[in-house]
């Protein structure tokens, strides 16, 4: 373990000029050559700030006061330029689409070399070499909009590797990828680390997905401080993750429910390698058999129905939707899942009337929607976009929420009443007089949901409702949606977050290449190998845990886990909130 120290934080602190309190306190962290570390922590814990300090965006783009010392290869970063640092540290940003600055794959990879004045033939040779390293060399002349999310990320990785850096930083590499592609991304990072010998820093709050490949250490941050810096096995055996609001892997949660004690010598960081002895397996089996309850199936009233819907984007050949038939019952909470380009977003656009179907019928409560305009449909079907900034156009919360009513000519006193109701439902009543710019991302999301709810729709469709949210905000948004759902609003969510569908959706409709390939309970879908593969999903670790403990019906085990979570754990959580 006598590897060379690359990076060292020593009593380091940082305060942004625009803020009164420091964002980082007393950071002590050492990174050696070839190490892989995962930095985890809730939103606002300071992990992005820490990364910006390493890659030089602080202090070159974001100004503030630094204290203590931060050295890169023995040199204080204060004495280096951002360009000096860029030769040592390569950063792959979360949004690989915005990071794509070149017109084509090859140009984007070449970008750093161009800036370094590398001339031909070196330039072309190096680009080709790196492109084949990440496996994107068949797409050299492709423009970004011709690539999938996973391919764009490969290009970003290549664009950083081209510079032969010592440290690779991945900022939330899994945020915009579907589960299967996320798995490939972790494989790629792992392979690149081995081939280049670089030090890898991954910033991510999806612990379970990152741990698909081994990491040496996990640095857990909370409120601007490092609260743990230990091996994954040690960290998973402690209670630190729960204290910080970072989600532990599902199989660990299940084991804890079953009363199994987690210790480092059991290797909890990887289910495959984990030691589960007979006694522990028996505990899990007992827990599973403890209370298996019958599900109550209520009567179902059909709300939204699509029959044989076909749609092709103008100017393209392929049918984006090819004979879609689905039905959503009133009061249901349903997830639509599938890869990018599978047709799930297109389907929601067709429902909202943004695009006109070529064939097929869509009905709401039995009424054909074809003759209704976008505006008329919106009174019955609410659509919430992924990025709230794409919807917000007013300065004040109240005006934003009232907008849909004002454009419909509803009298002011009525507006007042309905806005109040919507704000109260969304927990924004206290903030009603605030400007929207003062809100957090999650609160903005609530404003957009309130702005839709005020029109009193029968169903709301949400595009990736929790994208980019940490576990606490994720839970907050999803509990809020569940609450709405309990009040009778039908909820349709487009997502590729498997936890979300497993925990919150009653049912999932799986899209693949314009077809519906499955429409079933989530626990059935996430344990069906064929569907998982086709829809680029990932098997839930709960299923593997069941098999490992000798439970034959893995699917039923998953269902049991979810029922347990919903009925016991969540009730406790909401009780806590009351006394909070």
């Amino acid at each position, binding site marked *: 373990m006598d590897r060379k120290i690359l990076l060292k934080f020593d009593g380091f602190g940082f305060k942004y000029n625009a803020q009164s309190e420091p964002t980082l306190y007393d950071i002590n962290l050492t990174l050696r050559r070839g190490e892989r570390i995962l930095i985890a922590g809730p939103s606002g814990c300071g992990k992005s700030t820490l990364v910006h300090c390493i890659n030089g965006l602080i202090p070159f783009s974001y100004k503030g006061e630094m204290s203590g010392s931060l050295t890169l290869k023995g040199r204080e970063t204060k004495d280096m330029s951002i360009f000096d640092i*860029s030769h040592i540290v390569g950063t792959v*940003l979360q949004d690989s689409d915005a990071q794509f600055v*070149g017109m084509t794959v090859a140009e984007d990879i070449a970008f750093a*070399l161009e800036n370094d004045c590398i001339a*031909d033939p070196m330039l072309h040779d190096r680009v080709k070499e790196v492109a084949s390293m990440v496996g994107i060399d068949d797409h050299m002349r492709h423009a970004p909009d011709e690539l999938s999310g996973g391919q764009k990320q490969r290009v970003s990785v290549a664009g950083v590797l081209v510079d032969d850096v010592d440290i690779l930083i991945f900022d939330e590499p899994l945020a915009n990828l579907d589960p299967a592609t996320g798995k490939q991304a972790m494989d790629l990072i792992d392979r690149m680390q081995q081939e280049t010998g670089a030090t890898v820093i991954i910033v991510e709050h999806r612990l379970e997905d990152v741990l698909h490949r081994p990491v040496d250490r996990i640095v857990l941050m909370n409120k601007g401080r490092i609260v743990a810096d230990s091996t994954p096995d040690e960290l998973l055996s402690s209670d630190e993750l729960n204290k910080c609001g970072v989600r532990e892997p599902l199989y660990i949660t299940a084991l804890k429910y079953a009363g199994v004690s987690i210790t480092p010598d059991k290797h909890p960081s990887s289910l495959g390698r984990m030691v589960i002895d007979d006694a522990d397996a028996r505990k899990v089996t007992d827990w599973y058999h403890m209370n298996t309850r019958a599900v109550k199936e209520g009567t179902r009233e059909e709300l939204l129905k699509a029959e044989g819907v076909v749609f092709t984007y103008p100017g393209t050949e392929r049918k984006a939707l090819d004979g879609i038939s689905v039905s959503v019952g009133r009061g249901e909470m349903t997830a639509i899942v599938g890869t990018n380009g599978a047709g799930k977003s297109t389907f929601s656009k067709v429902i*909202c009337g943004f695009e006109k179907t070529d064939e097929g019928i869509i009905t709401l409560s039995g009424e054909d929607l074809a003759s209704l305009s976008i505006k008329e449909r919106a009174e019955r079907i609410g659509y919430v*976009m992924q990025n709230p900034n*794409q*919807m917000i156009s007013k300065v004040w919360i109240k005006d934003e929420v009232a907008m849909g009513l004002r454009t419909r000519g509803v009298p002011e006193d009525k507006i007042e009443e309905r806005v109040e109701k919507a704000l109260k439902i969304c927990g924004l009543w206290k903030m009603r007089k605030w400007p929207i710019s003062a809100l957090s991302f999650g609160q903005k999301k609530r404003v957009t949901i309130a702005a839709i709810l005020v029109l009193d729709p029968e169903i709301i469709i949400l595009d990736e409702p929790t994208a980019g949210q940490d576990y606490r905000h994720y839970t907050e948004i999803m509990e809020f949606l569940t609450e709405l759902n309990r009040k009778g609003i039908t909820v349709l969510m487009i997502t590729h977050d498997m936890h979300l569908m497993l925990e919150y959706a009653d049912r999932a409709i799986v899209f693949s290449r314009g077809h519906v390939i499955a429409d079933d309970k989530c626990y059935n879908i996430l344990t069906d190998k064929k569907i998982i593969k086709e829809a680029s999903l990932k098997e839930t670790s709960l299923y593997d845990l069941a098999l490992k403990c000798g439970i034959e019906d893995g699917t039923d085990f998953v269902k049991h886990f979810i029922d347990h979570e919903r009925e016991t754990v969540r009730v406790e959580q909401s009780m806590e909130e009351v006394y909070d």
Partner: protein
Amino acid sequence: MTNLFNYIDRPSPVHRLTGATKFVCLMLWSFAAMSTYDTRMLAALVIGSMIIFKVGRIKIKDVSFMLGFTAVFLVINSIMIFVFSPRHGTEIYGTCTFLWGMSGRYALTAEQLFYHLNYLLKYLSTIPIVLLFVCTTNPSEFASSLNKIGIKYSVSYAVALALRYIPDIQKQYHEISQAGQARGIEMTKKASFTGRIKAAAGILIPLIMSSMERIDIISNAMELRGFGKGKKRTWYMGRPFKVQDILAMAGCGLLVALAAYLAYVNGGRYYNPFI
């Protein structure tokens, strides 16, 4: 995808010229065509441009939209000239030959018709060259070309970035306007003029806000990869000048010289057959 450039990749001698060459040639050719009113030279340029267009292997149907657009523009322009200045030809050529025994302010004169003919020839000699430039220049190479002819690389790269992100912004605009319409922003003709201005604001504000977010990320991404480090940078798509590039530019340079020579011989920009 709609884009400012409509690059069509078909191997031809015109495609093989570098973007910088094509840009310089376009400038020189247009300058020659715009400066001279010598009908003989304009006619030669028209024939020349048609031949080069053919060599570039661009088909009429590839550019039919742009052709139609310029045709409409040309017609309107000609009508306006005649409406506002029906004796422009007479002023230039110094004679006044009424045709078909007409008289009055809007009577046709041979001089006016001749002036319009020259005007038409100017258009016909430049349009094919402009279209050819747009269709045979690879947009990524264009940025490197601008840099090569002396424009600062940060400015050249801004052009490339704009081309890169225009489709994204179009897509975003489309999405935002759909969501806006769902909330009742009326974008159709049903709304009054002020109503539509307000509606546009309702879409532009979110568009600007989300674009600002993006710009922040992009500029960080570029800095992290060393953009702006040196006074110079190389270009992956850049190509060195070859013999044909020098020849093409020299040829176009000669055209400008010819236009200047003709101006000297004719004693002005106009070739006058009426004296």
